[in-house]
C-alpha cells in the first residue's frame, strides 16, 4: 500500500456503511425502487381516471319504453337507423376507453398494491362495468379490493363496505347491520356525504346502533360545517320532524 493510499484510507474511516455493505445498500435501493413504483402507479391512476372521465355516455341501448310517458311522434326509419348507428359507435368508444382505464388501474395496482385510491378505482371497475364494458362484473373481487382500501382509510371504500354489509346493491357479504354502521360511521367521520346520510338514518331508526338523535345531529352538523348541502337541508328537515336535537342556530347560516 502506497503512502497515498494509506492517507486515503485513514481519512475515510467514517464512510457510510451503505456504501460498503451490501445489505443496507440494497435496502436503500429497495426504498428508491419503492418510491419509483409509487410514482409510476400514481401516473397510471391519473391516466385511468382521465380515461374514465372522458369516456362518452351512450344512449344505446335505449331505455325501456315508459308506458306512462307522453307518446313522442315516431321517428322516420332513416333517422332511427342513424341514431342507432351513432349510439352503437358511442357505446363502442365508451367500452374501449373504460377497458383501457381498467388496464391502467391494473398496471398501477401491480406497482403499488397499497394505494387506497387505486384499490378503490380498481374495485369500482370490477363492480360497475358489468358485462360489455371489457371487464366482467366480479363482486367478490370488488368487495375484497374495497375492503383493502377501507382498511387503509379510504372514505369512499368504507362507504362501499358499509353498503356491502347493508346489502345495499351488493350481495357478496352477509347482511350485518352493526358492521354496516361501523363502516358508515368511519366514512362519515371522514366527510363522506353518502355515508353521512346512511349512518344518520341508522341512528334515527336504531338500526345496527343504539337509537341516538343527538349523535345523528352531531354528524349532520359536522357535515354541514364542511359545506355538505344535503346535510344542511336534512338538518332543517329533521328539526321540523324531531325537534330539539337537530335545532342548533348556526346550521342555517351558510
Amino acid at each position, binding site marked *: 500500500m502506497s503512502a497515498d493510499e494509506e492517507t486515503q484510507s485513514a481519512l*475515510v*474511516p467514517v464512510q457510510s456503511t*451503505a456504501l460498503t455493505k451490501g445489505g*443496507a445498500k440494497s435496502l436503500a435501493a429497495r426504498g428508491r425502487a419503492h418510491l419509483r413504483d409509487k410514482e409510476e402507479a400514481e401516473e397510471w391512476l391519473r391516466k385511468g381516471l382521465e380515461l374514465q372521465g372522458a369516456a362518452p355516455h351512450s344512449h344505446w341501448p335505449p331505455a325501456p319504453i315508459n308506458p306512462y310517458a307522453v307518446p313522442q311522434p315516431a321517428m322516420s326509419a332513416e333517422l332511427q337507423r342513424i341514431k342507432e348507428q351513432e349510439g352503437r359507435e358511442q357505446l363502442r368508444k365508451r367500452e374501449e376507453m373504460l377497458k383501457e382505464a381498467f388496464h391502467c388501474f391494473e398496471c398501477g395496482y401491480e406497482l403499488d398494491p397499497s394505494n387506497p385510491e387505486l384499490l378503490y378505482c380498481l374495485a369500482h371497475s370490477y363492480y360497475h362495468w358489468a358485462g360489455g364494458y371489457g371487464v366482467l362484473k366480479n363482486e367478490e373481487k370488488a368487495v375484497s379490493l374495497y375492503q383493502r382500501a377501507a382498511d387503509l382509510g379510504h372514505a369512499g371504500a368504507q362507504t362501499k363496505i358499509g353498503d356491502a354489509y347493508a346489502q345495499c346493491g351488493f350481495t357478496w357479504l352477509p347482511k350485518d347491520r352493526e358492521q354496516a354502521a361501523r363502516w358508515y360511521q368511519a366514512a362519515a367521520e371522514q366527510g363522506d356525504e353518502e355515508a353521512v346520510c346512511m349512518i344518520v338514518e341508522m341512528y334515527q331508526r336504531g338500526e345496527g346502533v343504539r337509537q341516538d338523535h343527538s349523535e345523528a345531529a352531531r354528524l349532520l352538523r359536522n357535515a354541514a360545517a364542511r359545506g355538505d348541502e344535503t346535510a344542511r337541508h336534512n338538518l332543517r328537515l329533521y328539526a321540523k320532524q324531531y325537534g330539539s336535537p337537530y335545532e342548533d342556530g348556526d346550521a342555517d347560516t351558510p
Partner: protein
Amino acid sequence: MPTEIVRHLSPDEQELARKRQELAILEAELTDRELSLANLRAELAAFEGRYLREVGILYAELDDWNAKIAEFAAQVAGTEQARAAASDARAQADESYAAAHGEAAKAKDFSPSPELRKLFTDVVNQIHPDRAANEIDRALRNRLMAEANLAYKRQDADALRKILKEYKSLPESVEGDGAAADLERVLRQIERIVKRLAQIESEVAELTSSEIARLMAKVVSATAKGRNLLAEMKKDVQDRINLARKEFKAHPSMTRPQ
C-alpha cells in the same frame, strides 16, 4: 525625503512568497471542502440510520414473513425448486435483518452545533495530513485526522478538543528546519493539497450518487412539498406485512399436522 532600506528579494524568495500565498488559498479551500465532505458523510449516515430504523426494519419483517411462506410452501410441495426458492427467501430475510439492525441503523441524527463545526475546522487547519512537514508528522496527523472524522460524526466536541491538545503537546509537531528547503516543501504541500482536493471531489461525487443519497434527496424534496415519504413508505410496507401475515395464516400447510 524619507529613506527606506529596501531589501530586494532573490528570484527564489519571490517564488517562495508567491507559492506561500497560493498555498494559503489552497489550505483555506481544503478546510472548507473537508468540512463539507465530513458534513455530507455524517448527514448521509444519520439519514441512513433513520431510514433503517423506520422503514428498513419493516422490510426485514416483510422478508421474514415471505421467507416463512416460502418455507411452508416448500414443505408442502417438497420439490427441489420450492426448496431453493425458500432458501433464497430466507437468505434475503437474513440479509435484510442484518442490515436493518446493524451498526448503520444506530446512527444518530446529525445537527452539528457551530462550536462543533468550529472545532472540526480547527482540527483540519492544524492537523490535516497534507500540511505535514515530514513523514513522521504526517503519520501522526493521519491518525489524529481519522479520529477527528469519527468524533465529528459522533458530534463529540470533547474528543475534538482532546485531539487538538494532543497534537499541540507532541514534540513531532515542531515544524520547519531551515529556509533552504522551504520552497521545496511548499511545492510538495501544494501538490498534496491539490491531489486531496481532487480526491474529495470524487468522493463527494461517489457519495451523492449513492442509493442512500438519492433516496435522501427524494425524501428531502418531498418534505419541502409537505409530503412525508418515509411515513408513506412505512404505511405501505406495513400494509404488505399485514397481507403476508394473512397469507401465511391462511396457508394450507398451516392447517395440516406437521
